[in-house]
């Protein structure tokens, strides 16, 4: 019996050790691109994943562009992104309004394990059970960086995947966690500042119908204030606008650009970034 108990205790301990070795190796292998220098890293949720044409942006800027944008990416993913990005990097960040108001449990949060990020979650209103969920989601190492994205194909009209009522629900009242999430994003941005990263922010457009819901929402003031809070972290911060041509349909659905929109946006963004040396928030219209 003693032998069984002894082995029952030793087995998981040894497993934990072995697993950490496997996990760290796999993680380092899958995310090795983060060690690259002289490249541009993009972070955001599905709006950034679908809204940036990496090839076009890379051609404009003359640097390699990697994206960590992911459908449903959340604040934990952002914190890990800021941890992994090397010092002095060039970073494009999109913290959309939807990413701020999305329910915590719907965030992707699968970028790996980080004690620092979890500690910050805990300090900012995440319960132990929510952190446990994050840990469980990250037991398997994931690749969080890519050189390519699959843009939505062009179509003359939008396809409505999620009805407007879905967004109305989100924008109806200020979520209790909004302040905590915004604080966490600011912690991530501060981390990038400490790493001396050159940052560009981008706010992707919504379809006008969604925009009108947003304008009537009590959340709007909070999300607008958030932009000022970001700006206050920098010595020099300005906002600029990118205008998408209305000749063709730019939207795939209410909140995502299609390949035409993504291409136009990336071209303009590339041009502006090449000529601009100040931290800028680009608002796309």
């Amino acid at each position, binding site marked *: *019996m003693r032998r*069984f108990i002894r082995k029952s205790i030793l*087995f998981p301990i040894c*497993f934990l050790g072995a*697993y950490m070795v496997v996990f760290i190796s796999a993680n380092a292998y899958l995310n090795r691109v983060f060690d690259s220098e002289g490249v541009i890293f993009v972070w955001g949720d599905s709006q950034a994943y679908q809204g940036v044409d990496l090839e076009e942006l890379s051609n404009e800027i003359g640097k390699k562009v990697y994206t960590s944008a992911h459908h449903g990416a959340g604040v934990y993913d952002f914190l890990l992104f800021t941890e992994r990005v090397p010092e002095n990097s060039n970073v494009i960040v999109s913290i959309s309004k939807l990413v701020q108001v999305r329910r915590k449990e719907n965030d992707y949060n699968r970028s790996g394990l980080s004690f620092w990020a979890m500690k910050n979650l805990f300090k900012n209103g995440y319960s132990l059970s929510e952190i446990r969920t994050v840990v469980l989601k990250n*037991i*398997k190492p994931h690749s969080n960086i890519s050189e390519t994205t699959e843009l939505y194909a062009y179509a003359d009209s939008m396809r409505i995947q999620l009805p407007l009522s879905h967004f109305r629900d989100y924008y109806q009242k200020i979520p209790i966690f909004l302040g905590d999430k915004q604080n966490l994003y600011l912690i991530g941005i501060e981390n990038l500042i400490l790493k001396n990263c050159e940052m560009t922010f981008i706010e992707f457009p919504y379809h006008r119908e969604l925009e009108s819901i947003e304008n009537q929402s009590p959340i709007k003031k909070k999300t607008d204030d958030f932009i000022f809070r970001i700006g206050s972290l920098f010595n020099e911060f300005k906002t600029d606008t990118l205008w998408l041509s209305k000749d063709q349909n730019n939207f795939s659905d209410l909140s995502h650009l299609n390949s035409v929109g993504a291409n136009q946006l990336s071209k303009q963004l590339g041009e502006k970034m090449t000529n601009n040396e100040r931290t800028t928030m680009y608002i796309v219209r």
Partner: protein
Amino acid sequence: MLFNSIDFAVFLPIVFILYWFLFKSNLKLQNLLIVVSSYVFYGWWDWRFLSLIVFSTAVDYTVGQYLRNEENQLRRKVLLWTSILVNLGFLCLFKYYNFFIDNFTAAFSFFGTEISASSLDIILPVGISFYTFQTLSYTIDVYKQKLEPTKDIIAFSAFVSFFPQLVAGPIERATNLLPQFYKERKFDYSRAVDGMRQILWGLFKKIVIADNCAQYANEIFNNSADYGGSTLILGALFFTFQIYGDFSGYSDIAIGTSRLFGFNLKQNFAFPYFSRDIAEFWRRWHISLSTWFRDYLYIPLGGSRGGAMMKVRNTFIIFIVSGFWHGANWTFIVWGALNAIYFLPILLTNRNRKNIDTVASGRLFPSPNEFLSMGATFGLTVIAWVFFRAENMGHAMAYISEIFSSSTFNIPEIRPRNTTLLIIGFLVIEWYGRGQQFAIQNLGIQWKRPFRYALYYAIIILIFWFGGKEQEFIYFQF
């Protein structure tokens, strides 16, 4: 409480330590601990239904006591039927009442008469079909004087509610399990380690194979009208592995857990997808249920002793009842009938015991003949599973007819690479270990410790990395 939950991962070591340390020297206390922990295990899901188990236990214990001294055959029969009616009464009320009401009203309205009968808004208590059959086996065996009725109500309660196999089997016979509660149990290191290995393999089957297959099977079956024949075939194949991984995985965890507490449960699955004919399949699939029906239904009906007509009748009865046991839906009945149709030609030509041994025993690969037989049996089984999984008969027929259409020759719309590779790897290991109680029973047993541990670690990592979205065990609903 689910076996693949954190709750169970905490519950099991606590019970294990109490059982082997605190109550080690007292058999009665050990049995009492099993009863209490089994009730906690069951009550974790819904404590209200504990009353059903307690009532069933009380009825069968009392009937057993009366049967002990009763020699009058008529009274013995009355006692037996009391137990059968109480147990099956509960089962019918919770599981079949709505089915019969709905079908009666439908039948009357078909003939132009509208009758009003309302169905009940009740949920099915988890595992009711399993513990009902287990406790019935006690009463029937006592009635047939194959088993001495127990005086020990604690041991009997532990037998009825034994948590490892309470909610999804294996359905243990009183003749096998009950006497184990009377004997002093000593901790056996190699048995416990073997149990742990079986638990590990069961978790792999459930979490990696079944839960991954479930995602695709659910997607394809739930939207079958949107897919062509080739994708529907894939859906049926995924369900085939889902149900095997799910149910045999549960059985492995149950048997392995029992071994940790010094109990031996009977093997419930013996690599059924390597069967060479349907008769062999049914000797290897859900063995505890098949043998239950054989001993308590098929043989009392006359078994295979009579003429051809009697064989046909009894075969249909046993398979249809077996189908109906799984659920109150015509799809299960048709699934049972279809298996009877598969089985009858073999029975009537006396070839039902042709393949008793393990396929390709002592060889690495099967002969071409064995391979073809296995493939054909597997194919028939897959078709039958479509009825088992379908929502209703219309759904099943539409699904099958699309499979036999020209769209079967198109490239499937869904091509899950990882799950397919996992299934192939799983089949290789199952094939390698097909002569044992479970596939990894002897795998790596002779290896040096680091290699053996590396194998176990690799399985655990596969569970962590490739575990599918958590699904409830399919057989909980039966």
